[in-house]
């Protein structure tokens, strides 16, 4: 049946073949990514490809008077649906009780990410608001104008006399209609060419501090459904057996004992492993224990992280394979510097570890169409992948965009892993037999797609006056884009996701060199909340802090003195320092640290206060965060994303680390891979810089500064910079 599968059902590099054929998608992502890197803040000025009828595209109004917003952006907890609904509601003047948001897909012209030039639909790089800023306000305004036009026609009054408020269209004569009553007629009105948008001083939704998320109730009473909660007639549950090492292949397997178990529906081979299908999760899990697999590990990655990191460290001392930035003459400036600081930083692999373990469901239908339910963060790509594995064309694939219990980047995966597992399992079961592939925590932890491990070799020099004259950073690690549909974003040997955050260092340093050596390791990697900045910000901001100390300068003043051309960087730094009381003395045993970083065009500074006892006994007590993300659409969600980003980043630098021994992942569950827990969460205060600039994202940029801010506070306490992460394990080492 599965004759289209590769001969050995390889789970290594050959799975890329599934997607490398989708040339259109590949080119689209690459072009889009370059646009995003080049001019993210101006991305929304890209003209929309179509003058679409809003009622048929973005703002559906049902006869039952519901406003159903079709979102181009994926909701994984970060509030993109709420943000987009806010933009629509600002212009539409509906009532929030009417609002329902669903995921749109299947039409790149409508839903392509405008921050990526509209070339592909997808959610990433904290672009949801910049992509949607004009698109969804215009959709709301056009829909409103068409509702007014329909009412004017029905009531035979001038459109200018009609008002709209809280989902009701009214005329002074007393005539009124609900949106739902006018929806059909409104959809037939001419689509206005250029609807004026409300001026800033008339905004009631955008920037409102009291506006709360419309989707919280279902998250407090169990009603919100995720992919794991799907209820479809005849739905079975499949659990996966994956290769024990990355790149290992199935030699043979014996499923006879599993199939003999009551409730096991089937055991099928997919391109990525073996799916054990049961009538429920528990049965499938019991069946899984009974499957015997022989693996061929010939092509498997057999190195452990100790060997890999040793190789990286050695490579970091050699010249880099490619140069990402080269200002002045860094080697010469370092050679003549008065004081030089140098060292190696080590960053471990990290797991996204969302609490909802990865999943997707699929059904092949009698008519040849395919339904796929899941966390469709890259809908174009997933439609193409499902079509390819399902033996049809993308237009025959219906996506059901589910909300997910987190993602942090993991649901935007170029090999469409879960989609391929679900669709190939459904295809093996046959038409009309839906199946949900549900990973366990162990599958999730050992399933690959990690934040890559990196080593940075850094060297920086001060002159006699304590000015930074040169900085050199050589980054060694895997490329996220390499070998994926995103490979075209690599130019001159530089994957921008490996070096971002270092190449755009804002400080006025006359001699600055950033080199990159991309390594060949068969451990699947991926973007992880704030991507390159997860490691570059740490290396750069702890180094700058150490330079300040070596120059006997205050860390805030020292940074400010090098930020003359970067007022937004300087702005958040000053605000955070002021709100934190940077100049005020702290009680004994308490220490402060600061870090500043721009990622994805959002500027964030964080000041932390720690209590340090001794050894590795310390606690992060307080974080004061200042953020400049342009126009603040949902201030309370900006705060929420900063708080969450700080907690997410803090867990990672304190104690998260994925290691391998002999090619096998050592961690399986939350007992050994440990995200932050509540007792470790500091008090967080977030201050938003008032701004009229276009909005930028907040999902990721809160993450990068927390690590270096904590490390800088620890250096203030101990005199030592922690260059090897995670901190707790390495602090007293």
């Amino acid at each position: 049946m599965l004759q289209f599968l590769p001969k050995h059902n390889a789970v290594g590099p050959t799975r890329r073949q599934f997607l490398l054929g989708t040339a259109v998608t590949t080119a689209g992502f690459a072009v889009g990514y370059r646009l995003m890197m080049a001019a993210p803040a101006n991305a929304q000025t890209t003209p929309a490809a179509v003058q679409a009828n809003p009622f048929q595209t973005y703002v559906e109004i049902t006869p039952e008077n519901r406003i159903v917003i079709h979102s181009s952006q994926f909701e994984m907890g970060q509030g993109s649906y709420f943000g987009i609904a806010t933009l629509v509601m600002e212009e539409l003047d509906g009532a929030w009780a009417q609002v329902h948001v669903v995921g749109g897909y299947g039409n790149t012209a409508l839903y392509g990410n405008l921050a990526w030039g509209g070339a592909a639909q997808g959610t990433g790089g904290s672009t949801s608001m910049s992509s949607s800023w004009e698109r969804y306000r215009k959709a709301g305004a056009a829909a409103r104008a068409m509702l007014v036009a329909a009412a004017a026609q029905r009531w035979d009054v001038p459109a200018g006399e009609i008002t709209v408020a809280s989902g009701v269209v009214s005329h002074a004569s007393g005539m009124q209609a609900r949106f739902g009553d006018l929806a059909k007629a409104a959809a037939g009105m001419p689509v206005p060419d250029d609807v004026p948008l409300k001026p800033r001083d008339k905004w009631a939704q955008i920037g409102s501090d009291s506006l709360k998320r419309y989707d919280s109730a279902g998250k407090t009473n169990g009603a919100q459904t995720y992919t794991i909660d799907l209820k479809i007639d005849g739905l079975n549950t499949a659990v996966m057996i994956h290769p024990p090492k990355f790149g290992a292949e199935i030699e043979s397997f014996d499923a006879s004992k599993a199939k003999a178990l009551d409730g096991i529906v089937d055991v099928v081979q997919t391109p990525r492993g073996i799916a054990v299908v049961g009538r429920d999760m528990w049965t499938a899990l019991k069946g899984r224990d009974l499957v015997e697999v022989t693996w061929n590990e010939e092509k498997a990655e057999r190195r452990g992280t100790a060997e890999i990191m040793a190789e990286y460290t050695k490579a970091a001392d050699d010249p880099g394979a490619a140069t990402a930035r080269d200002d002045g003459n860094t080697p010469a400036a370092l050679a003549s510097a008065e004081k030089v600081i140098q060292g190696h930083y080590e960053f471990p692999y990290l797991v996204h570890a969302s609490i909802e373990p990865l999943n997707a469901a699929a059904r092949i239908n009698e008519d040849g169409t395919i339904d796929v339910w899941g966390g469709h963060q890259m809908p174009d790509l997933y439609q193409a992948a499902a079509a390819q594995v399902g033996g049809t064309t993308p237009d025959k694939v219906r996506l059901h965009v589910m909300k997910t219990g987190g993602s942090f980047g993991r649901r935007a995966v170029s090999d469409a892993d879960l989609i391929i597992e679900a669709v190939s399992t459904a295809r093996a079961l046959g038409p009309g037999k839906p199946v949900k592939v549900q990973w366990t925590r162990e599958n999730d932890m050992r399933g690959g797609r990690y934040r890559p491990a990196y080593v940075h070799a850094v060297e920086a020099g001060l002159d006699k006056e304590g000015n930074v004259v040169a900085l050199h950073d050589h980054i060694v690690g895997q490329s996220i884009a390499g070998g994926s549909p995103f490979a075209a974003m690599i130019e001159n040997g530089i994957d921008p996701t490996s070096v971002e955050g270092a190449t755009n260092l804002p400080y006025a340093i006359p001699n600055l060199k950033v080199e990159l050596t991309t390594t060949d390791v068969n451990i699947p990697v991926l973007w992880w909340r704030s991507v390159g900045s997860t490691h570059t910000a740490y290396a750069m901001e702890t180094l700058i802090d150490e330079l300040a100390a070596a120059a006997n300068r205050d860390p805030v003043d020292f940074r400010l003195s090098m930020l003359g051309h970067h007022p937004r960087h300087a702005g958040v730094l000053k605000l955070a320092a002021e709100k934190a009381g940077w100049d005020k003395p702290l009680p004994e045993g308490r220490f402060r640290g600061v870090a500043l970083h721009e990622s994805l065009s959002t500027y964030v500074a964080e000041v932390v206060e720690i209590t340090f006892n001794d050894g590795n006994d310390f606690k992060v007590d307080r974080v004061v965060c200042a953020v400049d993300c342009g126009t603040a659409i949902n201030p309370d969600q900006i705060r929420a994303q900063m708080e969450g980003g700080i907690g997410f980043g803090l867990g990672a630098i304190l104690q998260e680390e994925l290691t391998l021994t002999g090619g096998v992942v050592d961690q399986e569950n939350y007992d050994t891979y440990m995200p932050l827990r509540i007792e470790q969460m500091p008090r967080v205060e977030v201050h938003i810089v008032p701004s009229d600039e276009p909005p930028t994202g907040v999902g990721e940029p809160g993450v990068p500064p927390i690590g270096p801010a904590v490390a800088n506070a620890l250096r203030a306490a101990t005199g030592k910079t922690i260059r090897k992460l995670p901190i707790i394990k390495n602090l007293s080492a």
Partner: protein
Amino acid sequence: MVAFTLNGEARTLDVDPEMPLLWAIRDGIGLTGTKFGCGLAQCGACTVHVNGMPTRSCQTAVGDIEGASITTIEGVSGKIGETIQAVWAEFDVPQCGYCQSGQIMSAVALLTETPKPTDDDIDSAMSGNLCRCATYHRIRAAIHETANRLET
């Protein structure tokens, strides 16, 4: 056959007695508010009340709950539970929301036992509930607020 009370209703289930209560509730009964996160009592997403005690349902066998009274997120009621749910939404605590059923079940148990919890009380009662979105800051604030409202 196991007989127990679920959200105030008498139930019987004819399943493998070793089946974790989590899967019995989700797949057997069809109440999906209780979540699977780790299967190892490490994340707290599956927290339910067994005779009022917060319990990880992923590590509780159905065979062991004969005669017990089980409450899931769908069965949260009463002043404490309803106040917590209201404050949770008002404070915009949830982000993805996936862990929040478990968080709320633990918070209800905490406030039932300790009406005026300190930060330390909150930390120790809620430590078993992971939130990967790290909404902890608001969870803490929402528990204090709930305690204040219940006092008046």
